[in-house]
């Protein structure tokens, strides 16, 4: 059966081209792979190869023709035993769509359906994190994290932890202290200094059925591994149509410590929070560290668990329970109030809570919300609070441009505009690389006074 040779699309964007030169003539025998013609696109001149064997029966578009549309027949190929006379009554070639037919197959014109997320605000979950009357114990964030890791490794033998100095050194920040002795070198694994490589090995291990906890000595070093986190871990479930993903946790200290300079002091919350496929956790209190970490290990998705070196040594009350978890996407009202909503997470909570105490002395009753997880985000708790207080200040240690605070501010404007009595103010770190000098570093970071000043501005008291 005679086959039409169609003007090919030679690049993702090509719609038409110039048939620059025929390299065959009517009557020539061609085999698959032979060059038939040269075609000029706006980018390059490309050779066009035969796909089938046969004889060139007729050339329909002469060389030198410009503006030949993709999918127009440019020649007819005859199979063994056919002659040019067959061309006229040649049936439409099988497996070839004419350009006219093509659009019919085009997708529905279609507006994409709305995502589930911005649906009418769900009601805030105000259930307590643990039953009333539960026995409490004072623990540092470090101890809470250590016990959470150990409990999850105890619970599931496919959970393992890898990273630099996590085993024999007992952790650069002692988060993994004692784990090597308890679980052995098979499950507590020292890696060479090779973040990109071990992050990728972690992703592969997760594809292969394990549950890796990958420690970055600090998240500053995760920049070396960014491609594996975003392109491999976060996107595979989607790209595979749900067949496989990377259930794993990337954890480590994030943000400024103290006097460690620009390359060791960045807060990456906004970077990771912008990525669909990742979950992002950034707790403040020890109980949240513990409950959320255990949830992170059990979650079937890649989770970014952002810790803070300054908080590691701080003590908080933690419930004494055999198995205690906190769900993602549930913010916590850390201090109830009526006059203004202060929203923060991670170390920002330190300034938010301190500001709230001082403001109370001035007669301003602030409600402080600890977001705890940044993706998924508990918008409902924030919106309900803003509807009550009509004012909002966000507190974040990171840089101000394209920050999580920016997103929250925009969300509040879109969903509670009529309730606002003042613009939302984002109190962020300064828009500078972190300086080393003690006085300059202090100036670059968020301060309690700045939070107080922002609250006074939104309550028109300044």
């Amino acid at each position: 059966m005679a086959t039409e040779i169609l003007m090919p699309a030679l690049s993702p964007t090509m719609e038409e081209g110039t048939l620059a030169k025929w390299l065959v003539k009517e009557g020539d025998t061609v085999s698959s792979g032979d060059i038939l013609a040269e075609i000029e696109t706006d980018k390059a001149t490309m050779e066009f190869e035969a796909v089938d064997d046969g004889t060139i029966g007729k050339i329909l578009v002469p060389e030198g023709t410009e503006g030949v549309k993709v999918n127009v027949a440019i020649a007819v190929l005859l199979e063994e035993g056919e002659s040019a006379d067959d061309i006229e009554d040649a049936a439409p070639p099988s497996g070839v769509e004419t350009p006219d037919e093509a659009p019919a197959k085009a997708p529905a014109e279609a507006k994409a359906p709305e995502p589930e997320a911005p649906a009418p605000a769900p009601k805030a979950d105000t259930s307590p994190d643990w039953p009333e009357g539960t026995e409490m114990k004072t623990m540092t964030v470090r101890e809470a994290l250590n016990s959470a890791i150990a409990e999850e490794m105890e619970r599931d033998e496919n959970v393992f932890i890898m990273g630099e100095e996590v085993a024999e050194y007992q952790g650069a920040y002692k988060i993994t202290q004692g784990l090597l002795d308890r679980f052995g070198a098979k499950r507590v694994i020292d890696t060479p200094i090779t973040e990109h490589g071990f992050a990728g090995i972690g992703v592969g291990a997760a594809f292969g059925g394990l549950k890796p906890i990958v420690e970055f000595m600090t998240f500053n070093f995760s920049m070396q591994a960014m491609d594996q986190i975003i392109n491999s871990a976060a996107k595979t479930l989607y790209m595979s149509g749900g067949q496989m993903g990377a259930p794993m946790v990337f954890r480590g200290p994030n943000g400024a410590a103290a006097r460690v300079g620009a390359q060791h002091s960045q807060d990456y919350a906004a970077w990771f929070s912008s990525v669909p496929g990742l979950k992002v956790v950034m707790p403040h209190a020890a109980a949240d560290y513990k409950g959320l970490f255990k949830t992170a290990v059990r979650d079937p998705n890649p989770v970014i668990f952002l810790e803070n070196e300054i908080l590691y040594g701080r003590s908080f009350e933690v419930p004494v329970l055999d198995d205690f978890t906190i769900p993602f996407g549930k913010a916590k009202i850390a201090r109830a109030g009526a006059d203004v909503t202060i929203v923060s997470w991670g170390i920002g909570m330190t300034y938010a809570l301190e500001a709230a105490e001082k403001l109370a002395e001035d007669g301003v009753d602030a409600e402080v919300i600890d977001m705890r997880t940044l993706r998924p985000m508990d918008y409902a708790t924030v919106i309900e609070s803003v509807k009550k207080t009509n004012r909002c200040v966000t507190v974040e240690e990171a840089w101000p441009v394209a920050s999580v605070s920016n997103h929250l501010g925009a969300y509040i404007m879109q969903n509670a505009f009529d309730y606002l009595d003042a613009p939302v103010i984002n109190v962020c770190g300064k828009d500078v690389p972190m300086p080393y000098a003690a006085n300059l570093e202090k100036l670059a970071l968020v301060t309690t006074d700045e939070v107080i000043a922002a609250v006074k501005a939104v309550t028109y008291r300044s």
Partner: protein
Amino acid sequence: MATRKSAAKPNVSAEELMKHYREMLLIRRFEEKAGQLYGMGLIGGFCHLYIGQEAVVVGLEAAAEEGDKRVTSYRDHGHMLACGMDPKGVMAELTGREGGYSQGKGGSMHMFSKEKHFYGGHGIVAAQVPIGAGLAFADKYLGNDRVTLAYFGEGAANQGQVYETYNMAELWDLPVVFVIENNQYAMGTSVKRSTKSPSLWERGGAYGIPGEEVDGMDVLAVKAAGEKAVSHCRAGKGPYILEIKTYRYRGHSMSDPAKYRTRDEVQKMRDERDPIEHIRTMLLNGKHASEEDLKAIDKEIKDVVNDSAEFAKESPEPSLDELWTDIYAKEVPQGEAI
């Protein structure tokens, strides 16, 4: 067809030869059809064809056992067909349809099959190398004796993460075969213009990883080397490197004007070293098959490929709801080697 000497002594059954011929031909015809559908605008974006390299995956799959894993780059159609994935599902993914392996959400570069232990389809050059070592890590951890084939090109061999992975794979004795498919051109840059290393497999020596160079236009040579590499890994001796010298006939992707090499160079390869012609000649010369037998196989394969193309055209585009699915997993089975 020029005569040639096979590197491998043909200690191989007619049945096996026929199987290799069939599998390589399927890849060749499938890719030709994909090129055609691309030309018709039915396949979009990037489309990297495997024509010329068929002996690499067919030879290595012949050396692999059930349950072994594989992971590769974006030039992945051949790997999927060779490990037994359905041509219909692969072609329908190329056309971005519901019947594709990723329901049209992955495309040419991003397909996966849990059932066939195919872990992608990765678009970032060399990212699949640590992932392959990670799969091997999981197998070792779980105590099964599976081996992972981690394929990458000679272009990827200059990425840092390859060497980070070599180091850890040898340090931890991971059962992974690093397969360098050296087709001589990283997009438009010939290997000679990207490194002074005389051979790429020898770089593994710096980490203590053994390896060898293999004639990638000879499926029997590939299979023999693959068997050696796989048994090295399965015996718990750690990773192994195969640098397989091959050649791609087509451009880097469909939109490659191919000005970096001469037409004669390509033609010479096709005429003298074609891996399919090689086996075809062996079959005919050894009287294992007649011209008619081979014609019948050609026809059979052509039908399989045409069916896949029909399926890929008829399969509907994914439902619009699919935009919002598979972003997060609700449940992923744990504790099993998948």
